């Protein structure tokens, strides 16, 4: 009986200890199982991206891999022609901002360069856990990680105006643009919701989208608007049209302030 008297407290202490250390034991078991497991996955075939995927890639932001000896689908000449065509389409629509009717008139712009690059969507393993709601609009599409070949066509106009077009190598279509003018010239430049509505209508026509696919405009800060639409896969694409101020320093440390109008994330 004496041994029984000590047996019960010992048994109780054992059970309490087991209860206390159960989470650690479970974790050790999980770690051991994970450490001894190697999982094989089939390499997914290349995802055939379309224009909307590339719009989405441009909208969500990307990293750039420069190409030096590229054998892209479009040649440099074809890319220049595609850029001119895009300008024509925008001018003929006509797209005009800040009361500038001839903003996209090809005759007012001189093409400086057309450079291909690989755009790689921004991804981070932990970004999905740390992102804030406002960042979600621009979050990378982790379900469909993508990369594509784009062209960056740079134009310059009179009085320091600059225009960058981002073209899709597959279709030759304009995916994004960035229009820059010295800040002093646009002190009175106004940007309104009508501009965003006009841009949405242009996108509908240019990208061959249905009006019903577009949702209501959403205001942004810095001043601008989101032009969200839902593609045929049911995924939302957040095009944007916004303005911003930026400074550029030249080699002689002179600082130039620019006013920027950007579509679909270009130049931001």
């Amino acid at each position: 009986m004496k041994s029984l008297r000590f047996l019960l407290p010992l048994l109780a202490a054992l059970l309490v200890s087991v209860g206390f250390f159960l989470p650690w034991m479970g974790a050790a078991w999980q770690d051991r199982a994970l450490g001894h497991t190697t999982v094989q996955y089939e390499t997914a075939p290349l995802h055939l991206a379309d224009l909307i995927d590339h719009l989405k890639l441009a909208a969500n932001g990307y990293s750039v891999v420069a190409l030096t000896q590229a054998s892209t689908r479009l040649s440099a000449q074809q890319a220049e022609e595609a850029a001119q065509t895009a300008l024509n389409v925008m001018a003929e629509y006509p797209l005009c901002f800040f009361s500038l009717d001839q903003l996209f008139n090809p005759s007012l712009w001189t093409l400086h360069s057309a450079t291909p690059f690989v755009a790689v969507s921004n991804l981070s393993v932990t970004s999905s856990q740390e992102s804030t709601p406002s960042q979600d609009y621009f979050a990378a599409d982790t379900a469909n990680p993508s990369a594509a070949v784009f062209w960056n066509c740079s134009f310059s106009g009179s009085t320091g105006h600059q225009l960058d077009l981002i073209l899709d190598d597959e279709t030759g279509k304009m995916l994004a643009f960035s229009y820059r003018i010295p800040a002093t010239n646009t002190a009175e430049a106004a940007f309104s919701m009508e501009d965003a509505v006009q841009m949405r209508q242009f996108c509908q026509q240019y990208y061959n989208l249905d009006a019903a696919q577009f949702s209501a405009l959403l205001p942004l800060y810095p001043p601008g608007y989101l032009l969200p639409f839902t593609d045929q896969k049911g995924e939302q694409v957040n095009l944007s049209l916004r303005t911003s101020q930026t400074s550029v320093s030249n080699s002689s440390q002179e600082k130039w302030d620019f006013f920027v109008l950007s579509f679909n994330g270009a130049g931001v």
Partner: protein
Amino acid sequence: MKFRLKTTLCMVCLVSLLFGAGSCALISFSFQNALEREQAAARSAYALLVRTLQLVETVEVWSQPQDVVQVLQQLSAQGNKSWSALSLETEQEFLSQGSISDGFLDLREQVDETHYAQSAFSYGGKQYLQLAGQLEIQGEPLILNVAYDISSIYQTRQQQQQAHGKIFAILFVVCAGLSYSIAWFLTRPLDKLSQTAQALAAGDLSRRSGVQTQDELGALAREFDAMAARQEANFAALKATMEGQDRFIGSFTHELKTPMTSILGYADLLRRGTLSPEEQANAADYIFSEGKRLERLSLKLLELYLAEHQALSLVPAAPADLLQDLTAHLSPGLARQGIVLTTQWEPGLCLLEPDLFRSLVLNLIDNSRKAIGAQGTISISCQMTERGCRLTVQDTGRGMPPEVLSHLTEAFYRVDKSRARAQGGAGLGLALCEKIAVLHQGRITFESTLGQGTTVTVSLEGGRP
């Protein structure tokens, strides 16, 4: 070990195991979910990296594997670097990014052109997911190993475990305290019962548990208290019996000793032959009278013994007839002593033992006669009752003080010892009367007033035919 401590230990064990199992399941589930999210994100990042390299490879002219390195470096420079370490190897490794690339597992056996592999490893106190796949650059196979830091989910799990530890400690203390308190509250009646049993065993027969709960323990305690009360009553009765027997033996010894001393003294005188004839006659008379008194004493004792031990057979009899017969014989003798005997009885039958009834009436009349002395009246009445009859003998004698009434039925008890001895009483008459009453399921009661007389009432409840 006390029962309440056992209960507490059981509760603590149960709660500990359940809480531990619950925490384990919750933490494991949370960790597994987070791990699966990290794995999915890592696979997406890895697929994007491979997709990028494949895309660049299709449009760019790569002359050497080092060109791949430049692509990766460009991505790293722009902050699009989700990996913690990366290695690109052919026959011999030629690119290694990140200090932990030494920790890479060799997954070459698990990868081929159509499959990539995922595993996990620890390095420098951190945990990583490793993804390995095969690329083909300019016809040359390359193994791309990428590691993603997933230490954050391990840190989260560690924080959850620490939280579990703290909550467990608090829960342990609270559970132990509450369990002990509840067990103490519930087993308190058992403590009282135990203490009462100990007190009873130590001789305190008046001790009771006093537990008043309405549960099973309350019922047990009430039964226990009732049992203790019965034991106390039995013990008191036994004690009274023992005391009575002690008194009986003492009185009996005394009753024997006195006449025996006288008889021996006178017998010694006769044996010496020194007495005159007249003195010899007186001595012989005294010896004879004391011998007769001893004989009466023995007869009374015998009668008392028989009343206690003889098998009793109650028969239907009429008390009026028995009383009439007795008084008819006794009246003349009493009248000669100046005592008037009055009678009053109801006709009817009841179950009784006729000889014992006669003995009862004779003893009561004899006591009344002795109490009256010279002049007086003895009234005898008998009423029939539902279960038998009630006999009342009333005298106009000298009466008795109230304090002696409870001792009247004790053997050898006399109110006035010298007078009783002179009248030849042995102090056994009323003891016999009480025995007779008890044998008839009845009782005997006394009422007396000093100087006025005594009334003795005997109820006999042996039943009626």
